[in-house]
C-alpha cells in the first residue's frame, strides 16, 4: 500500500511536466488534465486514508524509500516518504482543496490564453506541497519547501505584464529565501548535531543533546516558518502576493502553503519541547502576528488584502498554538484545517465577486451585492460566520480551543497570550463583519470601470460555485465533526502526544468570553459600517488606520533599511571594484609603463653617451672580476 505514496506526488508532477512542456496543442484539454491529475492524487490520498483507518493507531505510519539521493561520505540523504496521521491530514486538505480550486479556476481563468500554463503551475504547486508534507527528512522537506516557493513565485507573477505582479512575485520569493536560509542552517545544525536529518532519528535523539543546540535549531526553524507563513517580521510579502489570480490566493496564500510553517513546527515538536525558549519565541511571534494581521485587515479596503490580513492573523493563531507545545499542536492543526476550508471559501467568494464586478477589488465600490449573487453571498456568509467563530461552525471549535490552550499555558505568559488571543478574536469579528457589510449590504456604490460602463454583477458559472458550496459545507461542519469526541485529537495523538494543560479558566468561561468579544466586535463594525452609509473614497482615518493601510509601515521600513541600504552598498561596491581592486592592477601597469618611458630617454642616439655606458660597463666588469679574484 505504501508504494502508492509516491504516486501522490507523481500525479501532479506529471501533470505539471506535461502541461508546461506540452505546448499549445494542449491548450484545449490542459485544464481538464490538470484537474484530473490533482483529483487523482486526492483519490489516492483517500484510498490511503481508508487503509490507514483500517489499522491500529500505532502501525498507521507508512514509510516508502524510493532511492538514495545524495550518498556522500558521512552524509546520507534519501528520497523517502513518510505518511503518518499528520501528513495524511495535510495530504487530504491539500489535494482536496487543491482539486476544488482547480475546478474553480477552470471557470475563473476561462478568458486567459495562458490557462494551460496556469494549471501547469498549480499542479507543480500541488506536487511540491505534497512532497513537503510527505518527506521523511528535512532535506527533502526543504526541496518541497522551496518548490512551493517557486510555484507561488510563478503564480503570483502569473500576470507578468503587470509590473506590480512581477515585483510582488520577486518580493515573495526573496522574503521566503530569507526563511529558507533559516531552514538550511537548521538542517546543517541537525547534521552536525545528530549526523542526520531524517525525522525519525533526529526527533528521537533530541534528548541526547544540549538545550542550547535545540534552541538554536528551533529558532532557525521558526525563522523558516516565519518566512513561509508570513509571520512577523517576514510577513510583508503576503499582502502583495494578492496580485496573483484569486484561486492562487485561495489555494496557496490562504489554505495550504502559508500553513507550511505550522506543519514544520508541529512536525519538529520534539525539538521545540526540548527548547522552551524557542517555544516562547514561537508563541510571541504568533501572538504579535495575530494582532498585526488583524489590525492590517481592519484598515484595508482591497477585499483580497483584507482577507490576506486575516489569513496572517489566523496563522498567527496556529503558530501561537504550535508554540504552546503538546497542549496546542492538535488545535493548531485543527484550526489549520478548518481555516483551510473557510478561508479558501472566502477567497473564492471574493474572486467570484470580483468576477462579477469587472475585477474591481475596492470594497468601498461594492455594496448591496447579496441580491445579485446569492450563492456567493451565502457561501461567503457561512465562511464569515465560521471565521469569526460563530458557535457551531468550524471556526468556533478550533479557535476556541486555541484560546483555552493559550490560557492553559499557565503563568503570566498564559494570561498574556490568552488575552491577546481573545483580543484577536474581537478584532477578527470586527473586520470580517466590515468586509461582509461593505460587500453585500448597504446601498450600491458601484463605480464605472475604465471603459466607463457600470458593472452588472451576475452569479458565477457552475464550475466556480460548486467548489464554493463544497468549501462552505466544509467550513460549516468540519469543526464540529472533528471535535465531537475529540476525534481529531485522538487521530493525531500518536504524532503530537497531546496533553491537557491545567487551564486557570474553565472551558465554559473561555467560551463565554469569546462570545462576548465576538458580539462586541460585530456590533462595533455594525455601528461603523452598517448604519450610516459608507463613503466611496476612504476617509483619512486615524494615525493607526493610516499606518495599518500601509501594513503598519513594515514595507517602508524594509524599503529604507534593506532596499536603499542594499542599493547603496552594491553601488559603492561596484565603484570600489572598478577603482580599487581593478585600479591597483591598472596602476601597476601604468607605473611600469612610465618607468620604461623614462628608461627610453637613455637611448638618446648619441654615440658618445652609448660609449659612456659601454665604458662604464667595462669598468663594472673589471670590478666584478677583481672581486671574484678577491673572493
Amino acid at each position, binding site marked *: 500500500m505504501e508504494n502508492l505514496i509516491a504516486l501522490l506526488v507523481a500525479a501532479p508532477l506529471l501533470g505539471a511536466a506535461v502541461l508546461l512542456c506540452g505546448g499549445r496543442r494542449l491548450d484545449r484539454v490542459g485544464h481538464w488534465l490538470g484537474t484530473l491529475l490533482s483529483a487523482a492524487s486526492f483519490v489516492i490520498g483517500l484510498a490511503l486514508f481508508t487503509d490507514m483507518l483500517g489499522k491500529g493507531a500505532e502501525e498507521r505510519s507508512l514509510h516508502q524509500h524510493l532511492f538514495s539521493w545524495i550518498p556522500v561520505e558521512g552524509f546520507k540523504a534519501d528520497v523517502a516518504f513518510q505518511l503518518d496521521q499528520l501528513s495524511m491530514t495535510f495530504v487530504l486538505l491539500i489535494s482536496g482543496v487543491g482539486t476544488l480550486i482547480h475546478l474553480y479556476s477552470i471557470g475563473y481563468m476561462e478568458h486567459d490564453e495562458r490557462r494551460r500554463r496556469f494549471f501547469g503551475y498549480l499542479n507543480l504547486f500541488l506536487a511540491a506541497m505534497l512532497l513537503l508534507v510527505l518527506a521523511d527528512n528535512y532535506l527533502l522537506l526543504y526541496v518541497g519547501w522551496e518548490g512551493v516557493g517557486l510555484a507561488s513565485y510563478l503564480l503570483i507573477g502569473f500576470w507578468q505584464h503587470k509590473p506590480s505582479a512581477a515585483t510582488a512575485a520577486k518580493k515573495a520569493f526573496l522574503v521566503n529565501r530569507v526563511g529558507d536560509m533559516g531552514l538550511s542552517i537548521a538542517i546543517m545544525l541537525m547534521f552536525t548535531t545528530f549526523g542526520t536529518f531524517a525525522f525519525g532519528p533526529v526527533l528521537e535523539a533530541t534528548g541526547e543533546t544540549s538545550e542550547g543546540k535545540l534552541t538554536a535549531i528551533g529558532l532557525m526553524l521558526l525563522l523558516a516558518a516565519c518566512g513561509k507563513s508570513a509571520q512577523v517580521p517576514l510577513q510583508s510579502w503576503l499582502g502583495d502576493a494578492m496580485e496573483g489570480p484569486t484561486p492562487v490566493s485561495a489555494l496557496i496564500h490562504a489554505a495550504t502553503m502559508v500553513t507550511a510553517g505550522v506543519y514544520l513546527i508541529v512536525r519538529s515538536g520534539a525539538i521545540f519541547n526540548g527548547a522552551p525558549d524557542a517555544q516562547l519565541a514561537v508563541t510571541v511571534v504568533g501572538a504579535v502576528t495575530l494582532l498585526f494581521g488583524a489590525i492590517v485587515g481592519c484598515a484595508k479596503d482591497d477585499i483580497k488584502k483584507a482577507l490576506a490580513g486575516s489569513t496572517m492573523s489566523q496563522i498567527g493563531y496556529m503558530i501561537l498554538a504550535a508554540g504552546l507545545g503538546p497542549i496546542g499542536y492538535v488545535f493548531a492543526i485543527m484550526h489549520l484545517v478548518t481555516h483551510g476550508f473557510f478561508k479558501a471559501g472566502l477567497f473564492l467568494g471574493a474572486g467570484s465577486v470580483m468576477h462579477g464586478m469587472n475585477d474591481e477589488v475596492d470594497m468601498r465600490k461594492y455594496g448591496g451585492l447579496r441580491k445579485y449573487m446569492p450563492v456567493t453571498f451565502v457561501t461567503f456568509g457561512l465562511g464569515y460566520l465560521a471565521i469569526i467563530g460563530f458557535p457551531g461552525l468550524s471556526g468556533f471549535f478550533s479557535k476556541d480551543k486555541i484560546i483555552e490552550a493559550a490560557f492553559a499555558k499557565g503563568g503570566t505568559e498564559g494570561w498574556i497570550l490568552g488575552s491577546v488571543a481573545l483580543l484577536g478574536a474581537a478584532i477578527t469579528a470586527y473586520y470580517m463583519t466590515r468586509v461582509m457589510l461593505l460587500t453585500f449590504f448597504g446601498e450600491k456604490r458601484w463605480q464605472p470601470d475604465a471603459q466607463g460602463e457600470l458593472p452588472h454583477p451576475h452569479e458565477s458559472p457552475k464550475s466556480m460555485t460548486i467548489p464554493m458550496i463544497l468549501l462552505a459545507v466544509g467550513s460549516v461542519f468540519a469543526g464540529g465533526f472533528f471535535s465531537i469526541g475529540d476525534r481529531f485529537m485522538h487521530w493525531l495523538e500518536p504524532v503530537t502526544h497531546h496533553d491537557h494543560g491545567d487551564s486557570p479558566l474553565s472551558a465554559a468561561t473561555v467560551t463565554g468570553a469569546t462570545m462576548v468579544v465576538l458580539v462586541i466586535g460585530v456590533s462595533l463594525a455594525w455601528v461603523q459600517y452598517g448604519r450610516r452609509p459608507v463613503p466611496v473614497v476612504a476617509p483619512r482615518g486615524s494615525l493607526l488606520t493610516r499606518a495599518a493601510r500601509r501594513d503598519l509601515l513594515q514595507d517602508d521600513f524594509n524599503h529604507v533599511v534593506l532596499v536603499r541600504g542594499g542599493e547603496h552598498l552594491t553601488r559603492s561596491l561596484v565603484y570600489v571594484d572598478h577603482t580599487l581592486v581593478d585600479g591597483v592592477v591598472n596602476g601597476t601597469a601604468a607605473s611600469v609603463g612610465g618607468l620604461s618611458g623614462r628608461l*627610453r630617454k637613455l*637611448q*638618446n*642616439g*648619441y*654615440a*658618445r653617451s*652609448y*660609449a659612456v655606458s659601454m*665604458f662604464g660597463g667595462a669598468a663594472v666588469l673589471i670590478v666584478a672580476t677583481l672581486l671574484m679574484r678577491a673572493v
Partner: protein
Amino acid sequence: MNPVNYLYLAALLFTIGATGVLIRRNVIVVFMCIELMLNACNLAFVAFSRLHGNLDGQIIAFFTMVVAAAEVVVGLAIIVSLFRSRHSASVDDASLMKL
C-alpha cells in the same frame, strides 16, 4: 725601476684616450683618441713581452699596428665621405639612432 711602470703608463694613456673618445665631438679627434688607446695597448704588450722574456707580445703589437693601419684607412675614408655628405665632422650630428 721596474718595467711594470710601463704598464702604468700604458694604463694612463689608455684611460686618457678613452676619456677623449667620450668628451670630444670632432670625429677625427675621436679617431685619434682611439689610436692613442691602441698605442697604449701596444706599449703594454711590448712591456709584457719584456717581462716574460719572449717575443709573442711584440708579435701581437705588430699585428695590432697592422690592423690599426687598416682601421685608420677605412675610418678616415668613412669620415671623408661623411664630411662630403653633411659638411660636418661632429659625431653628435650622426645621432640617427635616436628613437
